[in-house]
Structure formats: C-alpha cells, structure tokens
C-alpha cells in the first residue's frame, strides 16, 4: 500500500473510533437524508397542487358560458409556475417568488402567494433542503473533523515521528486530504442518492444531475483542501479551528447577506406602484383612448378606414370596437414588455454583482451553480413571467379579434340598449375551449447548464486557490521537517 493510502486508512480508522467524528457525520448524514426525503416529497406535493390548480383554472376558463368576448378578457386566466424536477434537491428561489399569476386584459399583475409571504420569519433561517445541508453544514462538519488532522499531530510530536520514519511531508498531507475527502463523500452520499433517484424516477435531466454532483463534489473538496492546509499551517489546533470557523461564517453566513445589501444599495429598483404609474403616464402620451380627439387613435381610425376603402367605421366589414381593443392592448403590452425588460435587466445586474462576492465565498459560487442547474434560479422565474406575459397577450388579442370579427359594430354599440343585440354579442362558448392552454417551456438542459457556468467558473477558481494553498502547506511542512 502506498504511504498516502496507508496514512489515509490510519486516519479513517482513528476517526471511526472518535465519538465526535461519529456523531457529527451521523448527524449530517441523517439531516441530509431527512432533507432529501422531505424536499422530494414536498416538491412533488406542491407540483401536484399546482397542476391541480392549473387544471381547475383551464377547466373553468373552458366552461364559461356564452359571453361578450371582452367579458372573457376581464375574466382572464390563471397560470401556475410548474416546479422543475430538481427543485426536490434545490428549491432555490421557489419559496421566494409567487407561483401563480392572474392574466387579464390591459393589466399586468404580480405573481402571488409565494411561501415567503405566507410563512413566519422562520423562512429566513434557511430551508432544510439537501442543497442547504451540503452548502452550509457540510463544510462545518469537515472543519470539526479535520481541523486537528495535522495540527494535533504536530502538537503531540506524532508528525515528527512520521517524518523520521521516512514518510514525506507531502505524503502525510495528501493522506489526510484523502481521509477527509472520504468523509466528504460520506456527507455527500444521501444527496447523491437523491439526485440519482430524481434522474431515474423524477425526470431530472442527466447532464444537470451530473453538473450538480460534480459541483458539490468540487465544493466539498475545496473545503477539504482548505481545512487540511489550515490545519498544517496554523500555529495550533485551536487557532486552526478559530480560523476555519471564522472563514466558514464569512462564506456561508455573512457574505450572502452582505452581497444582498451591497447589490441593493448599488442598484435600487423602483417599486411596483411607481412602475404602474409610469406605464399609465407613458400610455397616455402615446394615445388616450378616452379622448375622442386623440391624435393617435384618430390616425389609427383613418388608416383602418383607408385600408378598407370606406369612410365611416359603421361601414367597416369588421367591428371597429374590436380593432380599438386590439390596438389598445398592443400599446399597453409594448409598454409592459419595455418596463419588464428594464426591470429584469436591473435584477440581473444585481444578481451578477452579488455573485461577484462569490470571490469571497465558495458558498455563493456553489449556490449559484446549484440553483441554475436545478432550474430554480431567478432566471427560471423570469422565464415563467415572460412566457406568461406572452400567453396573456396571445389570448387577450385572440379574444379581441373575436370581438372584431364575430360581432357587428352596431350590435356591439347597442348591446346595452337593445336586448336582442345584447344576446347576439354573447358568442358561442366553444371559442373559450379553442383558446390554447398555457404550456410552460422550462429551461432546456443546455440553457440550465449555461446559466450554471459563472458559478462553475468561480468554483473552479476556488478549487485552484485551495489546491495551491495545499501545495504551499505541503512545502512549508516539508521545509519545517527538513
């Protein structure tokens, strides 16, 4: 057996007899298993609830009675954001965003009923998911188990004994790294099993699963290397522990919060209410449909009359009111898109800025990778909002077109005065059933993997840093011995 493996085996034998190590590993493995089980079952449950609600909303839309199409524009539609399969591993921002959106004409509503507003402030303590257990608790267990790996042996003189027996200092260090990496594998095991399970039975894409498994393995390896190196370099085991715990607190606890405040201070965003008002104001500048002499709508009428070769709206072969509705919706939607794009861009900037602090925190780096690969990052929510808005526009314009084509102008104008006209404007409800249902297109695997790249790059950087730290520690150790 090579000396490295012998040292690793010895270390592991020793750890297996140490009560603290036993308890720590057992606890974190148990926590990880509990987290995986509950996260998977909760993910499945909320996915079931959402698809049940979606089915109910689709059924209710299809089942509406004969109506004026504009009534359906205001009846609107509900859409629910489906949970990606890997949300059972890392739910990401799911609890922090609303999962349901009410779509109607002329208005853009917010996604509502996110867990964060429905939970007590306990939600801010962090959620017990496999991702959280490995991101936050995994490194800490490695620190508790590994901080003394070399420091204690040096304090007891055991290290000098090793070296006197002709084992190289680097080999000792490598042996300790291998032993601690084996512990890391144990910590990772329940999460890996959960990932494999999700890939086999939950429909999770294999490349994303591989990316997650690889990413978390690298992340724990970074901590293994840092822990062992600090143990080799620190003047005493006590200062090794203090340094490592402080580093962990900065990475896992302090940096994410600081990143939030820095990003928010650098790029504050307008409140929803201000955006609403700004949109209304811009809209009024383009065209005011309530103003009978509005230049925009006058020009619109003139162009419609011209294209049909008639001189009065009453003579159009289509219902002019429907055309006005379509034009109005076109204007508002263009503004919604413009403002939403601006807001998304601002949020992207914020998130990017927060991620830069991943330079100070491997936890931020792996978190970004994990959410992106799982499809539960902010980009996933944005995708939902954008697709929902596109869907809103499609169905509203479809209904407006029905108003233009299936109704006559005189019926539409007299619907409230003439009961017969009022009856005729209520069109056959088959039209509601023909309206397409909302189909959410999740991020493709390639998109998810691309989104995970910045996190991966940062993690790679950390792996390089930790590797060179270990290399330097080995050199110091060798020099100290020689």
């Amino acid at each position, binding site marked *: 057996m090579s000396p490295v493996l012998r040292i690793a085996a010895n270390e592991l034998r020793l750890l297996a007899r140490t009560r603290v190590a036993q308890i720590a590993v057992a606890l974190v493995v148990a926590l990880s298993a509990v987290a995986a089980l509950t996260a998977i079952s909760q993910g499945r449950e909320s996915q079931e609830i959402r698809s049940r609600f979606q089915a*109910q909303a689709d059924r209710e839309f299809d089942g509406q009675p004969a109506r004026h199409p504009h009534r359906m524009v205001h009846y609107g539609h509900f859409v629910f954001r489906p949970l990606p399969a890997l949300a059972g591993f890392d739910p990401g921002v799911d609890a922090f965003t609303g999962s349901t959106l009410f779509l109607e004409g002329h208005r853009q509503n917010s996604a509502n009923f996110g867990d964060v*507003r429905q939970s007590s402030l306990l939600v801010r303590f962090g959620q017990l998911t496999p991702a959280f257990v490995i991101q936050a608790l995994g490194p800490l267990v490695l620190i508790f188990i590994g901080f003394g790996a070399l420091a204690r042996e040096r304090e007891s003189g055991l290290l000098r004994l090793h070296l006197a027996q002709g084992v190289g200092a680097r080999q000792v260090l490598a042996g300790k790294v291998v032993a601690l990496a084996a512990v890391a594998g144990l910590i990772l095991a329940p999460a890996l099993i959960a990932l494999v399970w999700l890939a086999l039975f939950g429909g999770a894409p294999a490349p994303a699963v591989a990316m997650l498994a690889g990413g978390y393995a690298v992340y724990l390896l970074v901590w293994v290397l840092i822990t062992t190196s600090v143990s080799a370099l620190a003047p005493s085991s*006590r200062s090794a522990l203090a340094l490592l715990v402080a580093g962990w607190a900065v990475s896992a606890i302090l940096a994410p919060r600081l990143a939030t405040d820095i990003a928010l201070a650098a790029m504050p965003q307008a409140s929803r209410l201000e955006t609403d008002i700004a949109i209304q104001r811009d809209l009024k500048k383009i065209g005011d449909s309530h103003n009978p002499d509005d230049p925009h709508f006058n020009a619109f009428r003139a162009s419609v009359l011209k294209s049909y070769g008639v001189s009065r709206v009453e003579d159009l072969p289509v219902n002019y009111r429907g055309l006005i509705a379509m034009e109005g919706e076109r204007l508002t939607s263009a503004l919604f898109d413009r403002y939403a794009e601006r807001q998304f861009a601002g949020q992207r900037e914020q998130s990017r800025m927060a991620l830069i602090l991943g330079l100070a925190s491997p936890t931020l780096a792996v978190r970004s990778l994990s959410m992106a690969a799982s499809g539960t990052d902010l980009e996933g929510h944005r995708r939902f909002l954008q697709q929902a808005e596109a869907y809103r526009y499609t169905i509203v314009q479809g209904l407006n077109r029905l108003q233009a084509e299936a109704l006559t102008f005189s019926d539409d104008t007299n619907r409230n005065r003439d009961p017969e006209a009022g009856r005729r404007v209520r069109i056959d409800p088959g039209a509601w059933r023909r309206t397409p249902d909302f189909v959410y297109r999740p991020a493709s695997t390639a998109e998810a993997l691309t989104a995970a790249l910045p996190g991966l790059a940062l993690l790679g950087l950390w792996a390089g840093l930790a590797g060179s730290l270990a290399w330097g520690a080995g050199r110091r150790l060798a020099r100290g011995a020689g």
Partner: protein
Amino acid sequence: MRLGQELRLFLRQRLAVPTLVLLALLSTVSVATGLWEVRRQTETIARIQPLQAEEEKAVSAWVSREGDAGNAAYYTFHATWDPPAALAFAALGQRDVAPYVLRVRALALESQIHEGEAYNAELALSGRFDWAFVATFLAPLILIVLLHDLVSGEREAGRLQALQAAGGSTGLWLRRAGLRLGLAFVALGAPFAAGAWISGAAAGVSLAALGATALYLAFWALVCLGVGALGRSSVANGALLAATWVALTLVLPALAHLLINSTIPVRQGVELTLAQREAVHAGWDKPKDATLNAFFAAHPEWRDTPPVLTGFHWKWYYAFQHLGDLSVADQVAAYRRGLEARDAWTARAGWFLPAVGLQTTLHRMAETDLAAQLAYQDRIRAFHERLRRFYYPYIFNETPFREGDFAKAPRWAEDG
C-alpha cells in the same frame, strides 16, 4: 478596583480587542444599512403621493366631462402606504417581499389586496444584513470566541491552580464572564442605540429591544460557562460551542419551519382568489334582480333607489363586485387563521429556540413581521370600505361626479 484590573488583563489578550472591534463594526454597518433602507422606503412613500395626485388629475380630466361616477370609481386608484416604524431599521423583516405601498380601487378587493411587490428573489433568499441578523447570528459567535477558553485557557497556561488558590473562584469566573459579556453587549448595542436615537424611536421600545438582546447574549454566555465547566480543553470547548450554535441557530429553526409549514398548510390564498373570480364574473350572467337583492341584504340603505332597467348599470356592476368579496369571506378568514397559526407556533418555538425568540421579539418591536403585514392589510380593508361607501351615493343615486368630487374622496393619510 478588581474589575479595572480584570479589564486591563482582558484587553491585553491577543484576540480580545480585534474581536470586540469586529462586533462593533458589524453592528455599525448593519445599523447604517438599515437606516439607509428605511430612508429609501420613506422616500418612496413620499414620491408616490405627487405621482398619484397627477394621475388622479388625468383621470378627472376626462371622467368629469361625462360626470359618470361609475367611471370615477373604476379608473381612480387610491394609494395606501405603510410607513416604517421607528425601529424598522434594526429588523427589516418582511418589508422586502411584502408591498409597503399599494393602490386599490373600489372594485372587488380580494383580487387587489394580495398583490406582491417587484423584488429580486435571489437577494430575498439570502436575506438582509440588518442589526437583528448581527445580534442573532454573529454576536453569539463572538461571545464563543471570547468565552470558550475562560477557564480552560488558564488551565492550559498553568495558572489555574494559582488563581484558585487566590480564592473566590466562582466570583472570579463570573466577574470575568460578566466583563466579556458586558463589553460584547456594548459593542453590539451602542450602534443600535445610536440608530434608535437617529430614527427617533421611543425610549421604551428601544430599551426593550436592548433588554431582549441582553437576555439572549446572557443565554449564550451561560452556555459557554456551562460547556467550560465540563473541564475539557479549549479546543474541545470551541468545537462543542460552535456545534451548539449551528444546532440552535440554523438546524433546529429550519426543522421547526419545515414542521410548522407542513402541519399548517395554507392553500386558501390561491383557492380564494380562484373562487372570488368565479363569483365576481358569474355576476354578469345572473339575473340582475338576484344580484341586487343579495347586495341590498348587506347594504339595505340603497334598496329604494331606482331599479336597473338597462342592459348595464354601474350599481349592478359594483354590487356584484362586492358580492364577490363577500362570497369568499369565510376563506379569507380561514387563510388568515392559517397564517396567524403559523406565526403563533413560531412564537412558541421561540420559547425553546432563543434565536427564534429574539428574531420574533425584535421583528415585533420593529413592526416588520407577519402580524404587521396583516395589520396593514386590515387598514387597507377598512380604507377600501370607506372608498366603497364614498362612491355608492353617487352611483346608486346617479349623482354626477364632477371635478370637485375627486377631492372629497377618502385619503389614506387620515388613516395613519
């Protein structure tokens, strides 16, 4: 004095001053970011009012031409806001995800009141760096650094026996621990006190927040002393204390959250909005008399107004809007009970988990918790009721709504 001597001894230790300075620095930064955030919220609230007035003027310009009160009620939004309490800077709480400014109309309320704010969910996931965070999460770690080797450090330095021989060992340790606890408390609390003074918080509630924090720190000091009394080495104490910290501030609260949310599911929010929409829109297809009679049962004062004969009338429209809200009143109450139950169980968990207890207490005092969010909603509900009652006479008596009438509408500021 002996305490002065202890102080000199303590400050001469290598980690003492840097650790305390770090805590004071973190506390100061958190107070500063909190004050900044609160000022931003106050400015937003101040900014929306002229914007809102301008929009109202634009609506009034075309509505008052026709004088149709139904249009006035339909198109006029009314701004509401929830100004941050004086201590909000210390615990920003739910104000990042729940709106503190919201506009409502005299239409059915249940489709308006649950609206959310536009925020970056990735940042919300991380949470804010506020003073409550520093006090709950970081201050105990600092105490652990200061207290884990209180006794064991002396033993390892070979001074323990001499110290014990000098007499009064319990008193000595208590004095030393008290000194460290006191210094940590000052480092943590002084920036808070300054922030409270700047934001004009009442002395009573500020002192209460400091008192709760002092109790929390005292708890951690006792834990440190208890672990120290086991007689292990400094390094074993450090590891055990750090593990205790992880269990009490991360793992057990997360488990409690999991338990509470799965035992008390709240699905009524989505259910009630779906149901309310059905109820409101079914109004279009029901006989008008049935709708109006149901409405008159709740508002008999309008029973004797002229009957609706045309295909459309605003009084019928606003009647079924309100009936939509009434039809889900039970679900609204159930939803709220669910939320309050979650909150109540969290408060109970706070009796066993000091970190949860402190967070609950500080957020209650800062009025940034779920209860504060619900209280704001209650005020919106009351305001909406006043709005409805303001527009009803115009609509039901068919009184023209003119430019001057816009100014008569209820204003949020009067409500506080």
